[in-house]
């Protein structure tokens, strides 16, 4: 019999950790889909390495969410035994890899945010989140550098690479607004000094984007209509397919270990 979904008591703190864990796991899984398929060996290693970092961050965050919840869940149950509507990640990170440009633009948008976010979270009053931030911050800085170099190379490359990079920017833009939103529960955590207000990071995020995209001779869309829903479990059609692959072993053989 397939394993049933677990229920999670989503207090503001549990939900907060879970959302960031889901971001890291889903993006890490997406990048791992490139393993063995990237356009060149170096990029195969790079994307797999970044995937490893993100999955490592996800493990720490899930472990913390489980501990904060205190109901006997653990990192594996949280990753493998929640259904699509229980996932709380940003819509951005679940978008399909598309072509190489789309993968790198998605990574660039996310890493430019993660770099600022984790750096700010290092001063969180929550000791565990601050410690996770201190590790993730270093990794995100490296991920951002990698993605930035590719945005420039693609934008300032051939007509084909330039057109694809611009198309990816235009396509993914509407998924970026969600990164800067905070609901009521998160507002309370921000007020308590546990979380950072993501809205305060938007200016610097735009500065990073403008610099890199400018150097790449590409441009950012003017539109400000933003897609939302991931944080409350309303996802695009893509996440269900991703989870069916990610969770298939635990769903089919509950409790199975290597």
């Amino acid at each position, binding site marked *: 019999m397939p394993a049933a979904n677990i229920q999670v008591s989503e207090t503001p703190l549990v939900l907060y950790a879970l959302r960031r864990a889901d971001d890291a796991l889903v993006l890490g899984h997406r990048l791992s889909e490139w393993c063995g398929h990237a356009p060149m060996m170096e990029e195969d*290693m790079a994307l797999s390495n970044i995937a490893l970092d993100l999955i490592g961050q996800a493990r720490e965050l899930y472990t913390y969410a489980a501990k904060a919840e205190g109901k006997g869940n653990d990192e594996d149950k949280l990753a493998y035994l929640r259904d699509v509507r229980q996932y709380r990640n940003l819509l951005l990170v679940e978008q399909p890899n598309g072509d190489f440009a789309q993968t790198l633009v998605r990574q660039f948008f996310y890493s430019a945010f993660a770099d600022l976010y984790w750096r700010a979270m290092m001063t969180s009053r929550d000791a565990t989140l601050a410690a996770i931030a201190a590790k993730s911050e270093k990794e995100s800085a490296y991920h951002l550098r990698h993605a930035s170099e590719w945005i420039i190379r693609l934008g300032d490359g051939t007509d084909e690479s330039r057109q694809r990079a611009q198309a990816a920017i235009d396509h993914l833009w509407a998924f970026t607004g969600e990164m800067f939103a905070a609901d009521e529960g998160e507002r309370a955590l921000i007020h308590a000094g546990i979380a950072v207000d993501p809205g305060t990071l938007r200016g610097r995020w735009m500065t990073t984007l403008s610099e890199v995209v400018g150097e790449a001779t590409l441009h950012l869309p003017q539109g400000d209509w933003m897609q939302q829903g991931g944080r409350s479990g309303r996802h695009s059609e893509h996440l269900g397919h991703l989870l069916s692959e990610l969770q298939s072993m635990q769903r089919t053989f509950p409790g199975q270990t290597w």
Partner: protein
Amino acid sequence: MVTVLEHDSELRQRAWDAAAGVVDPEIPVLTIADLGVLRDVVLDGDHVEVAITPTYSGCPAMNMIAVEIEVALERAGFREPKVRTVLSPAWTTDWMSDEGRRKLHAYGIAPPQASSSRRALFGEQAVTCPQCNSRETELLSEFGSTSCKALWRCKSCREPFDYFKCH
């Protein structure tokens, strides 16, 4: 009382030495003490708990290292040793010992260079070739065979080599 204390400090030293001898499975010339991964050894009666810190969040070698520490401590006579992972303060290559840097160089991996700024979005780095010591080298890939390494090439001797990234 004095005897007990001396006994404890001897025991702790024995536990430390056993744990400190465990090597990184990916870079077997480096011990976890060389790497700065071994953070603490705490003795409670006859029970020992070792604190380690991960190099990178997703480094797959960490699970292996934890198992190896338990085995090493059991061999040294400690029953049911425990390994605890600590995240704070975050690991940095600054903790790598001079001995560790020498071993890396001798092994053919360029050790982390303190002068490089990891914050710079696009920075020039000068890495010395561990084969011929030339400064004329170039970056091939920011990411290498493991999380902690980048791939470089020497323009003088033409040998590609791993560089242990500054972190």
